[in-house]
């Protein structure tokens, strides 16, 4: 029997500083030391350990099609992330996973995609974006529109990639920040308001959103008002997932465990679950 709690040793290949603001977010590119690969699909997460410190769950942030490495974008916020942020390229960490369900990439084929992300919420959606933008897959999806929000210009993650993403055909990126800033030529304002300005082919669109709980709540109710059906609004939830395998009893919402039944849920599913997240 496989022991689901045993992690594998991995090495940090590269550390990329994402933000220039006080929100300290770094992207870690890591690979398994034994040469093995971690194959995953968009939406899944992994448990990262730092020996003697602890373990915490993180969503994948890299393309599932890049098999040589994985990337994780991590904000410095707690015990494990604090320790992680002091590590440099060449340091060893431990990984176990992947865990959880995935975005329904097959069902989403043929539809337009609306991505709405707030701050670090873009990280768990990046695998989906990169998956769709892969040349083998791009033709399977319709227009890709993105509404990317951050508190300020310095808070955007993956800024370096936006230009390349915009060049991909039928792709449109709208960037917004909370307050006006000098030299900013994008939008200013919150996503639940701006989403109304986007031209959406309602019957033919999947909306995928991730961000702070308040953003998920406000944007999803706006999208429902606009007429997007519940089952086509997808989000990914965060919980304190200790074990990742549905045993430890911490991440349940009703009888569903975010670690095995989630983290990706549609608004149709969430509407039937107790509101405890």
């Amino acid at each position: 029997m496989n022991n689901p709690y045993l992690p594998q040793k991995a090495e940090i290949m590269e550390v990329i500083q994402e933000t220039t603001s006080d929100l300290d977010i770094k992207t870690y590119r890591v690979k398994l030391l034994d040469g093995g690969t971690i194959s995953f699909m968009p939406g899944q997460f992994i448990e990262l350990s730092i020996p003697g410190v602890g373990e915490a769950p993180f969503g994948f942030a890299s393309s599932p099609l890049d098999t040589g490495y994985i990337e994780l974008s991590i904000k410095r916020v707690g015990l494990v992330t604090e320790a992680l942020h002091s590590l440099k390229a060449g340091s060893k960490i431990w990984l176990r996973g992947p865990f959880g369900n995935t975005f329904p990439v097959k069902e989403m084929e043929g539809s337009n995609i609306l991505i709405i992300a707030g701050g670090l919420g873009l990280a768990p959606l990046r695998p989906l974006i990169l998956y769709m933008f892969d040349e083998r897959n791009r033709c399977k999806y319709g227009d890709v529109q993105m509404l990317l929000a951050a508190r300020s210009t310095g808070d955007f993650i993956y800024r370096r990639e936006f230009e390349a993403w915009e060049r991909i055909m039928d792709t449109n990126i709208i960037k917004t920040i909370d307050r006006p800033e000098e030299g900013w030529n994008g939008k200013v304002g919150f996503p639940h308001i701006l989403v109304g300005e986007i031209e959406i082919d309602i019957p033919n669109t999947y909306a995928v959103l991730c961000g702070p709980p308040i953003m998920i709540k406000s944007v999803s109710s706006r999208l429902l008002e606009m007429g997007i059906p519940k089952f086509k609004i997808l989000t990914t939830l965060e919980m304190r997932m200790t074990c990742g395998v549905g045993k430890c009893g911490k991440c349940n919402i009703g009888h569903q465990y975010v670690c095995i039944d989630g983290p990706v849920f549609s608004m149709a599913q969430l509407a039937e679950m107790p509101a405890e997240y």
Partner: protein
Amino acid sequence: MAHVVVPKNRLNELLEGWMKNYRVVAPHRNGKALVFEEVKKASDVILNDEITYKSPKEYLFPQVEKIMTFGDGVEPESTEVRKTIVLGVKTCDLEALKVMTAVFTKGKYTDTYFEKNLNNTVLIGLGCRAEKPGCFCNARGLNKAHSQACDMFLTDSGDEYMAEILTCKGEELLEGLQLEEAPSPAAIPQDDNQAGVLEIDGEENVIFNKTDWASISEKCLGCGTCTFICPTCHCFEFKDTVLEGVPVRYRCWDSCMYPKFTIHASGHNPRASKKERYRQRIMHKYLYVKQNFGYTACTGCGRCIRSCPAGMNIKSVVTEIMENLKNS
């Protein structure tokens, strides 16, 4: 399988034989309290109708268990596989272990640590005669006189125990003892007064939203005693530490009654007050486990009722919930 007769005056001989090859865990008097502990002398074993204040779950799911050591690679802690006999387990605890076994071994993933402990444990059940104050296994529909969720089940019949051998592990224990076989009883021992089955029968969302959890949990002190002594509570947390320079990971019991149980690193807590935490405890026991594994995770052992410092009573809480549901 077979039934044999174990005369009570041969019990000590049996126990001493087992102690040579097994760690024998049995009810034992420690001060005033009766607890499941490793016993070294046959005379220390107390087989009576009392219920231990803690359940024997800690021998399958220890309160603190080292699960791995970090070195060049990660080594799973090879917990010395000690063959263990847990003797004198009452029906409520056996049924509870059934629930725990389902949680840990069913589904996509298997908890290998629990499984290993389970495989190395021989469970010997013991029939229970009377409900103690606080007990409500009858109301939960259990037959306290008999259970097959073990390797061997003992029924006290005066000068002897009737032993029902249920598995090979149980059979092994009696090998070469030349015990008299007994004819299979015509009927399994029955409880005379089985009442209806106390369940929460309703839709998850309705119970969640329509119950006045704030007033139900008002008295609760949030101490977590109920979860620690409960035979079905199985939530845990990993704790990492450095022992003698070596990083190790432990698995420790955790309790849904603690505020830190669900707190995120960001400070957001989905179950921030005791109302939510108490709701989780009741709903987890009576609804969530039932939906996921088919068992209600409460066997009516009454431990939480007897030990609660604030006099919370899960039986009346469940009854109250059902009455509210009927009236609304």
